[in-house]
């Protein structure tokens, strides 16, 4: 069963599963919770369980196509650029008034559902106010406050919490075949967000990057201006690397389209879609890279603070670096640590507001140097 593949969220899954079995499915759901926690997987699983004759067996052609986004009665809507365009919402409304193609129901999953301008949101609201009989909307968002209250009030809200650390740890140990120590580290570093924890297991460089970031932070003490700028540009390269990798993946997907099974017109159109998706993903990955660097630094200073205040060593996130943490705790005053953590919060905000990455990194590192050692 597909429900069994979902990690954590057992209460949420059980209640959704029951409502499908007892035919008490709502017209609209709002899935809320931190990004990467597994909302979208549950959304797809819910869709499959409604359409699959076996309630989401995970084996049949219906389940396969739903999970691969190939089923005509399940549509996933994502922001194009920053927002979900109003045209897309209009198309959905039109489509919602058509009976399903194959199954008994039609499902629309909106990712980043808060990212709609007023016109798009009010169009969606109109559909939610008088939903066609066999349609289910699943709005997925990490930021429910950004969703129009009138839309929210039409939805059954389902909130997703981070998977409990112990459960997540056991899961990634089994799934990824890694040691308990390592699983523990990954879970702590990713704050218990499932999607991120899995990424950290698959992408070894993320851990290497943490090491580099901390090394740079420790070197700030004795760095000249030029050294700091140099560090910033090295970190910038670290952020760029996965973005380049992403471009390569998309190039490959574009080449795959040209395997000859599709005619040139279709290939052109799909390539264009891929280009748009890539530019969207690039921005996202870049922002995420900066956020991760800033977060790594925040945890680092927080660990030093915990050590300094005589906290339980079990509370440390970078537990593998206890020696280094002790050394720093000896020399940096509490006030300065707190200022640094504040400053990093500002850096994360700047990343979300699309401040150029290199500029953001430079000013953060210089700011940290000032706050810690001036």
């Amino acid at each position: 069963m597909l429900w069994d593949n979902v990690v954590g969220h057992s209460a949420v899954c059980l209640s959704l599963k029951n409502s499908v079995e007892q035919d008490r499915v709502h017209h609209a759901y709002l899935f809320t919770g931190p990004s990467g926690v597994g909302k979208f997987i549950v959304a797809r699983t819910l869709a499959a369980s409604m359409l699959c004759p076996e309630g989401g067996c995970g084996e049949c052609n219906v389940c396969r196509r739903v999970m691969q986004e190939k089923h005509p009665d399940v549509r996933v809507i994502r922001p194009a650029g920053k927002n979900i365009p109003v045209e897309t919402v209009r198309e959905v409304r039109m489509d919602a008034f058509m009976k399903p193609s194959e199954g008994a129901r039609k499902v629309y999953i909106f990712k980043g559902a808060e990212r709609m301008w007023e016109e798009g949101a009010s169009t969606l609201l109109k559909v939610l106010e008088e939903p066609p009989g066999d349609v289910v909307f699943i709005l997925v968002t990490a930021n429910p406050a950004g969703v129009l209250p009138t839309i929210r009030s039409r939805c059954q809200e389902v909130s997703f919490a981070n998977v409990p650390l112990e459960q997540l740890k056991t899961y990634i140990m089994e799934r990824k075949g890694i040691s308990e120590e390592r699983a523990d580290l990954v879970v702590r570093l990713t704050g218990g967000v499932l999607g991120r924890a899995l990424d950290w297991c698959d992408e070894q460089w993320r851990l290497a990057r943490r090491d580099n970031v901390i090394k740079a932070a420790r070197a700030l003490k004795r760095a000249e201006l030029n050294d700091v700028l140099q560090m910033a540009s090295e970190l910038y390269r670290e952020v760029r690397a996965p973005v380049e990798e992403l471009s390569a993946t998309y190039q490959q997907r574009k080449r795959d389209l040209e395997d000859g099974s599709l005619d040139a017109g279709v290939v052109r159109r799909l390539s264009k879609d891929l280009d748009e998706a890539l530019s969207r993903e690039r921005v996202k990955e870049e922002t995420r890279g900066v956020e991760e660097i800033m977060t790594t630094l925040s945890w680092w200073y927080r660990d030093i603070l915990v050590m300094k205040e005589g906290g339980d060593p079990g509370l440390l996130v970078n537990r593998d670096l206890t020696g280094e943490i002790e050394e720093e705790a000896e020399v940096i005053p509490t006030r300065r640590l707190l200022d640094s953590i504040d400053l990093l919060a500002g850096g994360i905000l700047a990343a979300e507001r699309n401040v150029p990455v290199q500029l953001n990194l430079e000013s953060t590192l210089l700011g940290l140097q000032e706050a810690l050692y001036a």
Partner: protein
Amino acid sequence: MIVSCDREKLNSLVQTALRGVSSRVTMPILSGLLINAESGELVASSTDLEMSIRTRVEASVKESGSTVVSGKLLGDIMKSLPPGEVTVESGEKYLVVRSTGGEYRIKELMPEDFPQIPVWSGDASFKVQGGSFISAIHQTSRASSSDEKRPVLTGSLIEKNLESSGVRMVATDSYRLAWKDVEVSGSVAEWEDCIIPTKTLNEVARLAGGSDADVETKMQDKQAMFRIGTMVVTSRLIEGQFPNYKQLIPKGEKTTVVLAKEDLVAVVRRAMIFGHNIRFGVYSDHLRLTTETPEVGDSKEEIAAEVSGEEMEIGFNAGYLLDGVLAVDTEKIEMRFDDPQKPALIKDFESEEFKYIIMPVRLR
């Protein structure tokens, strides 16, 4: 799958199925044609998720099977092959087309990804003579809306009419409404009243065009199906409540006008050149149509007509008026009015089969 068939027949099969492939689709699989070979038949299917086409031809099937390939590529090669027998064989990765001269390989897509298309089973619920079905679509579809804000109005209602044992086709965009009663053979009892996208009906009319074949119709798996010869067109239905059109029909008790359709068409066409809205004057023995566009020009034309009842002046959108007049199926046209502020009725002369209701516009 190994199957052979005459090039001419194969090409027409593929070209027909291609009519169901949309250029706007987002799923790559929908640019493909599903090809099935089974029990002496080759079947080609296409869908854009709103409408699907399934068409078949007799063929010699040496090995049954199915595959999906790019519709455009298959169509292009079929069009260009020389006459004679063509063999089509699907292997692991490629569909191989062999003709006298050459061998052409088309990369296959995954048939499992292709959406399910309902297969016609059992008897039709009713049958309509092809020509009358096509003209009913032409007469009503212009009144349908293309505004996605009201999805229901982008469809046409097909409703059973138990009194006449026929069906009624109704379309409206809320500015005008067209209805047509269609005679059918067979029973309409099984038919479920439904709203079919007008776009699909227009396509059915195009596909049925040129042949005098009957159009057989039925409802299956919550979809409407139309069978024309060896081809089946399936349409998804629009959900929702169609406006209660019967309430809108004007009584038309105050004034009645009768005149030759062709004459009125010509006058309206000339008047349209000078304005979007027509001042439509009805007098004891003639009509006077005037239009104007300030600072551009104006028109005034009179035309004789049999008028009974009160004289009046009423405003119409010229395009909507023309659509209605053109849709009339008789040589003479009948118009009925109640009040300049109320909808007017345009209909076939001495017949109740076709009715067109048009809302008046305010005149300055």
